[in-house]
C-alpha cells in the first residue's frame, strides 16, 4: 500500500463506435497526489477516466499501469491495485450497506479464499472513513442520495487499492457533503499516500482540493499543473467559453473563479 503505483496515458485515443472522444492524449498521473480533471460537459473527461481505468479499450495508444498496458493486464490483478467508482453504479434491490461495501473485497477473494477477518476489517475501515458505521445493516434503498454516494465510495475504499479513480463522486450531494467527500479523498492522499484521480464539475472546489488539475477541452488536455499556476482567466475562457474573474479564495489562497454572465454585472468588465 505504501509503494506507489504509476498510472499514465500515452498517445491515448478513446471513443465509442466510430466517434472519437479523446484523441492522442498524454498524461502522467502524479503518484501520491490528488488529481482533478475538469472541463465542460462532453469534453471527454469521463471517457478519459474510463480509459485510464481500463473500462474502455483504447482505439489507439494505451493507458499504462506500472509501465504495462492496463487493458492487457489480468483485470483481477488490476482490481487489487486500482479502484474505480463509475458514474452510475446500480444498487440491487434490498441489498444492505455492509453487503454492498463488502462487494469491494471481490478482487481479494477467490474460490478457495472466501470471507476472512481481513475482509471484515477492510469493510469496517471503509464504513468508518465514510461515517456510515451505524447504517451497516440498513438497506441501501432507504438511504438518502448523499448517504448512498458515501456507500459507493466506501465500496471503492474497501477494495483497498493504491490508486482510486472516481467519476463525479459529488454529484447529487449538497455542498457540505461535497466538501466532506473531498476532505475524505484528501485524507486518503495525505495520510495514506494514495493516488486519487477525480472528475469534478465544481471549478472552485477543484481548485481548492487539487494537487494537480487537468483542464480538458474537446478530448485534449488544455493545461495541467498546480491550480494556482494554471488556472487563469484565459484558461477558463478557453475551456468553458466563459468570461470570468479570478480572485483568491479567502480560505485556501487558491484560485476562485467568479463567472461573468450577462446579468447582475454591477461593475464594468474589461
Amino acid at each position, binding site marked *: 500500500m505504501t509503494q506507489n503505483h504509476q498510472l499514465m496515458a500515452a498517445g491515448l485515443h478513446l471513443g465509442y463506435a466510430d466517434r472519437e472522444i479523446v484523441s492522442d492524449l498524454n498524461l502522467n498521473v502524479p503518484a501520491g497526489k490528488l488529481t482533478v480533471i475538469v472541463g465542460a460537459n462532453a469534453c471527454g473527461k469521463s471517457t478519459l477516466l474510463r480509459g485510464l481505468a481500463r473500462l474502455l479499450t483504447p482505439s489507439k495508444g494505451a493507458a499504462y499501469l506500472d509501465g504495462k498496458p492496463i487493458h492487457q493486464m489480468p483485470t483481477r490483478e488490476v*482490481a487489487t491495485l486500482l479502484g474505480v467508482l*463509475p458514474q452510475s453504479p*446500480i444498487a440491487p434491490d434490498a441489498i444492505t450497506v455492509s453487503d454492498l461495501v463488502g462487494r469491494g473485497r*471481490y478482487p481479494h477473494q477467490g*474460490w478457495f479464499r472466501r470471507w476472512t477477518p481481513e475482509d471484515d476489517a477492510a469493510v*469496517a475501515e471503509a464504513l*468508518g472513513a465514510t461515517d456510515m458505521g451505524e447504517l451497516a*445493516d440498513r438497506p441501501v434503498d432507504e438511504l438518502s442520495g448523499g448517504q448512498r454516494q458515501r456507500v459507493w465510495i466506501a465500496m*471503492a475504499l474497501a477494495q483497498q487499492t493504491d490508486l482510486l479513480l472516481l467519476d463525479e463522486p459529488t454529484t447529487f450531494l449538497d455542498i457540505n457533503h461535497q466538501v466532506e467527500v473531498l476532505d475524505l479523498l484528501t*485524507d486518503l492522499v495525505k495520510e495514506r499516500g494514495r493516488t486519487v484521480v477525480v472528475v469534478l464539475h465544481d471549478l472552485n472546489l477543484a481548485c481548492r482540493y487539487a494537487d494537480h488539475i487537468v483542464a480538458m477541452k474537446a478530448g485534449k488536455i488544455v493545461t495541467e499543473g498546480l491550480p494556482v499556476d494554471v488556472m487563469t482567466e484565459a484558461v477558463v475562457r478557453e475551456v468553458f467559453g466563459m468570461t470570468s474573474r479570478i480572485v483568491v479564495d479567502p480560505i485556501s489562497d487558491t484560485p476562485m473563479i467568479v463567472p461573468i454572465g450577462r446579468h447582475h454585472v454591477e461593475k464594468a468588465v474589461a
Partner: protein
Amino acid sequence: MTAIDTSYIAGVRRQRESKGRRVTLGLVLALILASAAALTLGDFPVSPEEILRSLFSPLTGFANKGVDFIVLQVRAPRLFLALLSGAAFGLSGIIFQTLLRNPLASPDIIGIAHGASAAAVFCIIVLGWTGLAVSLGSFAGALLTAFAIYILAWRNGVTAYRVVLIGIGAAAMLSAVISYLFTRARLFEVQQAMAWLVGSLNAARPGDSVVLAIMLVLTLPLLIALVRGLDGLELGDDTAHALGTRVEQTRLGLMVTGVAFAAFATAAVGPVGFVAFVSGPIARRLMGGAGRGIPQAGLVGALVMLVSDLLAQHALPNLQLPTGVVTGGFGAVFLLWLLIVSGRSGRVN
C-alpha cells in the same frame, strides 16, 4: 471519520448469513413435507411405513410388488421429475432476472420458452414426431432462440434492456408461428401439441428424471463457477469491470447456464408456465436483502412445481388438471401482485 469495530461488522455479516441459512432450512423442510404428501396422496392408500419400506426396498430386499409399483414406478418418478424440473426452472429464472436486473426477464417471458414450444409444435405437427424426439426438438428450439436473441441484442456488448425488448419481440413472433402451425394441423395433432404446450407431469416415467438429473448435474458446476461473478455484475457493467470481473465472458457463461436449465426442464415436462418467473422474486423476498437467493430460488421452484402438481392431481375430485394450468393461474395472480407492489413503491425495476 469514526472508528468502527471489526467485530460489529463481522456480526452484521454473520446475521445476514444465518438468515440465509434459516430461509434455506425452511424451504428444505417445506419440500420434505410436500414430498411426503406427494408419495402418500392418491387413489391407492399407502401408509407412511409402507412408503418408507418401499423406498428402501431396492436396498433391503423387503418387496411388495403391488405397493412398490405405486410408490416406485408411479409416485416417486413424478415427484422427482417435479422437484428437478421445478429447481431447473427456478434457477434459470433467477439467473436471467439477476443478470438482466429485471424481474420480468425470466426465460418464459423473454422468448426462450416460446422457442422451445414452437420447435415442439413443429416437431409434432409437421414432422409427426412423438415422445423423446419432441423433447430433443424443443431443447434445440430453446438453444436456437436464445442464441438468436443474443446475436440480435449484441451491439459492442449486450445490454439487459436490449435483451428484454428483443426477447419479448421474439416471444410474440414465435407465438405467431405456433398459431400458424395450429391453423394447418389436424385436430388430433392440435390436441397432442396443446397437451405438450400446457406442460404436464402426467406422463412421467422413471427414465425422465434420471436424464434430467444427469443434465443438471453436468451443468451445475458451470453455475457454481460463475455465480460469484454476479457479485459485480449486479452493480452495473462498469462497477463489475472495476472489481475485476470478466464481464462479457461471465455474462455469456451464465446465460448459457440459464438457457440450459430452462431447456432441460422444458424438454422434460413442457413449458410449465411461470415457475421460472415467480421463483426468483419469491426467494428474494424471503431473503429480504440477506443475499441474492440463487440456491433458494431453485428450492422455491421445486416447491412451486411440486405443490402445483399436487393441486393439479388432487384439488378437483375425479379430474386431473395439467400442472401448467395451476402454475399459470398462480403465476398470473403473482404477476398482478408484483406490478401493484412495484407500482406503489415507484420502482418497476
